[in-house]
């Protein structure tokens, strides 16, 4: 039989339900894969094979007792180490939270456990989810299982959810959670040939997720394909009274309602995303995507998102501003790292703790954020950015009068090599296509479209109207069916 670890989330769930294999067998298979790859891929910060087994045993017992199984019964998953997990270190890939073990479980992770999923471990990420290459992790970057043709250079698995993308792509877990603030689910999915969706802001509770930028952070699933994402998102989403920004709306049966027939649908192609010097492979994948959606019955229309060119600047003001405040709580007083030099007073302790506990990228963003909120600069930066954010949202509102979904590349290039982009600005520029949907709070997903000329996955991004995850998933499915993306990284680890 195909290895259990090659199976996706639904296949595992169904196989367990039918008795083709037990949940424990699945957990064991993935635990072994995780252990084998850990050194080479560094996808996990903490592995929890016992937790995966315990959850699996429970599912097997439930099934044996003839009781109803949860939506994700028997599926072991990876948990991005930004979600608080009770009794398991939650570090946000930082030194300042190294060893921090929450006494509480995030809403989203709890929902997943309640649905019958088990935890293989806590996945690597960019420190506090700040980054797009995983290089800001205090525990070293996750390594992509993919390599360029004829090259052994270590590539980025993307970021910030790079541990998640590496682990799913390398089949260390059938699915993983991600969080997306400016593209942190979509870009790593695109870089590693998997699917991932960021739902509408507010769909998934933020309670228990270490905050980066509160007005942008949104959890979502990363998995083999669109159907797996749809099902996992159903388990993750839902109103949470503990999150004041949570959407009080029913969670649709996205997976049951999947439909790749796009007749009568209009797909918008934003002309501003056709940037000069766009990577030829990316441009070709985009054209392929347009053709596939036409083939699925959609009408393709040209649309304009005129304020797109300001999106990156806006994002890199708003996100650091919120982060500078959100990260103030890591002060060495109550939990996490405390660096108390001899004779230090309170201010000295703050300075020493935060100097030692935060990485360079986190410090950079705290500084940027502090600066843009400062007296005398606030209006020029923060207020202005909020105004532009409104204009960007309005662009989308206008566009969605003419179309149902928008198709664009997920990232301007395929995955790059670790260490290749040493200037932070180069990294920031990689978020150009993903950030606008984040600023507008829109659902957006990345699906694999093909391979670049040097053999690396390319992703296509579908952006939908608020609350229309279904439209996004349907268009994603239409692409998936036509792209027939079946490439897998050759196992070298």
């Amino acid at each position, binding site marked *: 039989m195909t290895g259990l670890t090659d199976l996706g989330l639904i296949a595992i769930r169904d196989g367990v339900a039918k008795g083709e294999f037990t949940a424990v067998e699945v957990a064991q298979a993935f635990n072994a894969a995780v252990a084998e790859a850990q050194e080479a891929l560094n996808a996990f910060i903490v592995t929890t094979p016992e937790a995966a087994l315990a959850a699996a045993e429970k599912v097997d017992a439930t099934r044996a007792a003839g009781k109803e199984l949860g939506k994700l019964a028997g599926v072991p998953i990876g948990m991005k180490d930004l*979600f*608080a997990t009770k009794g398991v270190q*939650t570090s*946000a890939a930082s030194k300042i*939270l190294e060893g*921090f073990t*929450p*006494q*509480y479980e*995030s809403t989203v992770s709890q929902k997943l456990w309640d649905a019958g999923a088990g935890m293989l471990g806590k996945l690597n990420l960019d420190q506090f989810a700040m980054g797009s290459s995983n290089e800001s992790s205090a525990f070293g970057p996750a390594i992509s299982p993919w390599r360029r043709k004829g090259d052994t250079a270590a590539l980025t698995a993307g970021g910030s959810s790079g541990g998640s993308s590496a682990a799913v792509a390398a089949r260390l877990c059938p699915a993983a959670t991600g969080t997306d603030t400016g593209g942190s689910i979509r870009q790593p999915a695109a870089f590693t040939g998997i699917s991932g969706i960021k739902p509408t802001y507010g769909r998934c509770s*933020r*309670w*228990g*997720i*270490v*905050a980066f*930028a*509160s*007005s942008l952070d949104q959890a979502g699933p990363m998995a083999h394909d669109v159907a797996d994402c749809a099902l996992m998102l159903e388990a993750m989403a839902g109103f949470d*009274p*503990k*999150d*004041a*920004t949570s959407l009080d709306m029913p969670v649709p049966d996205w997976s049951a309602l999947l439909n790749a027939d796009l007749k009568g649908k209009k797909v918008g192609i934003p002309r501003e995303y056709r940037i000069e010097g766009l990577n030829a492979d990316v441009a070709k994948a985009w054209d392929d995507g347009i053709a596939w959606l036409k083939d699925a019955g959609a009408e393709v229309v040209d649309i304009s998102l005129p304020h797109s060119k300001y999106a990156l600047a806006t994002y890199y003001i708003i996100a650091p*501003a*919120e982060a*500078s*405040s959100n*990260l*103030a*709580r890591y*002060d060495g*007083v*109550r*939990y996490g790292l405390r660096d108390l030099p001899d004779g230090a007073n*309170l*201010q000295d302790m*703050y300075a020493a703790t935060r100097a030692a506990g935060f990485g360079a990228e986190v410090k950079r963003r705290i500084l940027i954020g*502090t600066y843009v*909120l*400062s*007296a005398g600069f*606030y209006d020029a930066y*923060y207020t202005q950015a909020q105004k532009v954010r409104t204009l960007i949202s309005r662009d989308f509102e206008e566009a969605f009068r003419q179309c149902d979904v928008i198709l664009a590349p997920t990232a301007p290039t395929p995955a790059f090599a670790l260490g290749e982009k040493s200037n932070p600005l180069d990294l920031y520029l990689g978020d150009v296509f993903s950030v606008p949907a984040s600023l507008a709070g829109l659902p957006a997903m990345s699906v694999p479209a093909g391979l670049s000329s040097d053999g690396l996955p390319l992703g296509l991004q579908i952006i939908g109207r608020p609350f229309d995850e279904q439209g996004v998933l349907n268009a994603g499915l239409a692409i998936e069916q036509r792209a027939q993306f079946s490439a897998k990284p050759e196992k070298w680890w």
Partner: protein
Amino acid sequence: MTESTYRIQGATGEWEVVIGLEVHAQVTSNAKLFSGSATAFGAEPNSQVSLVDAAMPGMLPVPNMECIRQAVRTGMAIEAAINKWSRFDRKNYFYADLPQGYQISQLYHPLVGEGSLTIEADEKAGIPEPKVIGIERIHVEQDAGKLMHDQHPTMSYVDLNRSGVALMEIVSRPDMRSPAEAGAYLSKLRQIVRYVGSCDGNMDQGSMRADVNVSVRRPGDEFGTRTETKNVNSVRFVMAVVESEAKRQVALIEDGGKVVQETRLYDPDKNETRSMRSKEDAHDYRYFPDPDLLPLVLDDAFLEECRASLPELPDAKRARYVDGLGLSAYNAGVLTNDVDTARWFEALLAATASAQNKPEADVAKQAANWLLSEFFGALNKLGKDLSSSPISPEGAAELLALVGNGTISGSIAKQVLEKMLETGDAAGVIVEREGLKQNSDTGAIEAVIAEILTKNADKVEQYRGGKEALFGFFVGQTMKAMQGKANPQIINELLKKALAG
């Protein structure tokens, strides 16, 4: 409006004081502003702290609508504009008692806008007429925790029980011109929040405290530079701060110095303020809208409920006591001064009216006089107040009814009250048991009178000869002979008759 004539006499002439108060009032609620934690005063350190209050990673604030409701009701009580759309901002600074590293407050869009309250005229205090004091705004915000420096020789401890407790910040206009006005404003504000029930007003427990902004100027000049003295926790101290700080500023200016805008602390032992930090090292708080919270939008139904649940407020109540119940302005003022007194009085009034089957207006004076001149004194002797009174308004009404229907005299009523306080027994039971019923038997009284007139024939002579002042002597003797239980009105009538001979 007559302006205050309060002046600081400097070496170079007179100075006028300008005062504004920022009052922090803890909202009465079982739970904190953004978490479900309890808020009891005096609990064990760190026993009332949720994950949110301790700012654990990933924790989020959710507004407690009861706190919002109380702030709105307070706003309505000062006739302020209520903003149906308001927003929370973060005030960022680092301190060990501030777990989040920011305080959630409302800088840009407060919940309550412009309002006012009226302080009463108080001639003796230099407030010749009632004066309207403007209130700029009320916003809600989180309190911080508390540092404890006395627990360990080299370390400070943090108690987060107060962390996240809801405060209303009530910001006045710089409309006050004397310590007395500042004191009267704070007292009035305290009175109003206690009536509304939005704050218990316990200043000694920190439920209410004031930041006192003071500046001085030549009468009629532009405002001077102000200082802000933080966390003053009694009316008396607020008045002392105004006076000492104004004098300090005058002396400074007259010495050729300049007042600097700064934050100061009051030292009650030395009765002086001292600098805490100047504007130069003031924090840049980097206020910005809290992205964890949506704007607060209030609907009409919510506002209507807030308005409908407002009690009669002190000014209206006082006016009604005078106009509707016929009480003196002074008594009305004392009875309405504190909400607990007014509540007790109204319960007494209702019970008294019903016990005597009369309209409230007919028994109001009796009830008010008894409460103010008899009962307060008696309680006071026992070291008690209305809240700890062993006698309920209903029990008191029974006593007043016994006086009202002539069963006992006013002086016997005093004895009965003492017994009631002593034993906890009902007035009727005591009167019955001790045989204190007033004697209205004219025959018996006439017999006693006859005896006394016989014994004191000389005095009768004198009385009849024009020494009418002796009438009191005969009343006293009669009453004494009847152990005080005779109906005094009947004694009067019968004595007059008998003496007229």
